[in-house]
């Protein structure tokens, strides 16, 4: 019911433009892995290659150790959920869900429109398909809608139908291409939890494409961050957040965005940073929670001015600017920081220890990046 996936040196070009460059990724059986990145980074293309909907220009795809490059999508034992849901508008919900089974278990003659039902010897198959459809519908709680057409359903219900159509065949691998991006924010949170629960229940391998880092972080065992046709880092969500290997990853993961300051500016603001920063110029990066607005032990004080404050209810975000022009964001509990007008002086404190450091090309330099799980197999 579950399978490992191995992508080896996948590349894809459309004419002159290269969408994917030499992408390799090992996905473990039963893993929930997200491909996340800004639009145009090649994540959807990679998923389509994995599905067999688009041929790769180079490299191999194997599922459970067997190469599948020669197989059509239906031969790879995978199911896919599309961003647009791609439900057949002329079929009822029940017929939509039944389609993958109908195509595989009924003979060509029995599938003919109108006259197909008259073909002999299909009642057993049809009964079996009916049971499978009912079971899949129950799993996503749409049993009551089996006779309706997709046009009569809400976005969230259509999403469930698309999920049921994917589940009904019990494939080893599920591919999801931004399945939640057409839903409103509330429903997205609910469906997020439901898809994660579905993954636990089915135990199959899930490959989930999204541009939303929150979705990727909350649902996945591992997240592969893609930029410009490459996987920059593939690691567990906490690993990505705490220990990004590349400045682009550090910036992409986490809201508000990580703050970056050149080491020179940091030392100019407080000489105390000189001993803990490298002699060569570097870019230091600070997550909002490491920026403190009150004196703390083992912290270094920096003068700053207040730019603006964002109230989020349970917490507030304080946007600050250092004398040298660098911007920092602090996260604070609401009510603990007096709200002051913009432009006012407001000092901040940063921990007296080596922060995350990146070189000019964006590569991490303060410590050797941890051995990546992506290549462990």
């Amino acid at each position, binding site marked *: 019911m579950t399978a490992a996936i191995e992508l080896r040196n996948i590349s894809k070009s459309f004419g002159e433009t290269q969408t994917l460059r030499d992408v390799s990724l090992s996905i473990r059986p039963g893993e929930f892995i997200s491909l996340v990145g800004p639009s145009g980074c090649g994540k959807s293309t990679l998923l*389509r290659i994995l599905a067999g909907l688009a041929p790769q220009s180079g490299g191999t795809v194997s599922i459970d150790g067997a190469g599948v490059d020669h197989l059509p999508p239906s031969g790879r034992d995978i199911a*896919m959920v599309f961003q647009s849901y*791609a439900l057949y508008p002329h079929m009822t919900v029940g017929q939509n869900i039944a*389609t993958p089974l109908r*195509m595989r278990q009924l003979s060509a003659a029995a*599938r003919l429109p109108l006259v197909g039902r008259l073909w002999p010897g299909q009642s057993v198959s049809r009964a079996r398909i009916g049971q499978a459809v009912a079971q899949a519908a129950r799993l996503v709680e749409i049993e009551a809608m089996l006779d309706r057409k997709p046009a009569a359903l809400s976005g969230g219900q259509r999403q469930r139908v698309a999920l049921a159509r994917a589940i009904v065949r019990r494939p080893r691998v599920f591919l999801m291409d931004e399945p939640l991006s057409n839903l409103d924010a509330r429903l997205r949170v609910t469906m997020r939890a439901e898809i994660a629960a579905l993954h636990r229940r089915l135990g199959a391998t899930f490959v989930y494409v999204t541009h939303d880092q929150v979705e990727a972080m909350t649902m996945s065992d591992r997240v592969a961050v893609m930029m410009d046709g490459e996987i920059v880092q593939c690691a567990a969500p906490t690993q990505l957040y705490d220990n990004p290997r590349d400045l682009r990853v550090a910036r992409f993961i986490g809201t508000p965005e990580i703050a970056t300051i050149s080491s020179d500016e940091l030392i100019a603001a407080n000489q105390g940073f000189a001993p803990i920063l490298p002699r060569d110029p570097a870019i230091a990066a600070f997550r909002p929670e490491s920026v403190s607005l009150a004196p703390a032990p083992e912290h270094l004080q920096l003068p700053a001015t207040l730019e603006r404050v964002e109230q989020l209810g349970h917490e507030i975000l304080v946007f600050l600017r250092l004398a040298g022009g660098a911007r920092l964001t602090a996260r604070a509990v609401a009510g603990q920081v007096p709200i002051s007008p913009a432009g006012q002086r407001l000092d901040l404190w940063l921990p007296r220890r080596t922060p995350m450091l990146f070189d000019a090309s964006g590569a991490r330099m303060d410590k050797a990046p941890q051995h990546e799980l992506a290549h462990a197999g």
Partner: protein
Amino acid sequence: MPADLSLHAPKAQPGRLGAVLPPRIAYGLAAPAVLLLVATVIAPILVMIALSFTDYRFGEAGLRWTGLGNYLQLLDDRTFKRALWNTFAYVAMVAPASVLLGLFLAVLIDALDRGQRFYRLVFFLPVTATLVAMAMVWKYLLHGTIGPFNLMLQSLGLPSLDVFGDRDLALAGLAAINVWSLAGFNMVLFSAGLTGVPQDLYDAAAMDGMDSRLDRFLNVTLPLLGPTTLFAVVTSTITAFKVFDTVAVVTRGGPRGSTDVLLYTTYLEGFSYFRMGSAAAMTVVFLAIMMVFAWIQARVLDRKVHY
């Protein structure tokens, strides 16, 4: 949503700038359009219906009321009944053939990697051509002795075929001309319909195991072209019913009445035999048939969701 909104729409609709017009001005503004509609469409139809109850002859000063006489005569008129039958037979050939050929061409061209525009243009040309002129060309092509079609048959050692001289073939020959000129139009309709089928559905179909082109065509393309097909069938049927010019140019109803169709018979009755009264009755019958199709067409176009 619009349905919900219309429930609460105010009864007196204010104008674009928010002012409510007094009825006097509103009717005044609508008057020119109403007058034009009455003068050019409604009045002629009413006059024609009135004439159908008289024995009016073209050019005569007087006329006599005959009641349903003209209609009763039509019931016994062998020429009219033959024309009616021929017209239905003609429509039964042209409508399905032109729709199927249009669908076939559209699907074929849609699958091309290059040259789509060229082929669409080529197959659309007959639609833009003058049918009368093209009918003359067809008459020459299929001519019993000098036509290239027959010369080709002869060179292959086959017996020659005088399409428009043969009672059993003439109507089918005319139908072929109309199919040729209508298929391009239907092709454009279907091409537009095909662009409305989302690519995602074909991707989903590939995942769901529709591996053969035929499976995808029967399960995705054809059902989604349903509304287009219905529209193409109705418009083709109406066009085929109105056949006149090819008959007038190529066969003049012959040989021996085998290509007499409704409009041509009506035309002869009114403008060759000058019996306007009975010609008007025939036109009313024709109009009634067209009304049925127009009603179907309006129903089809009204329905926004077709699947």
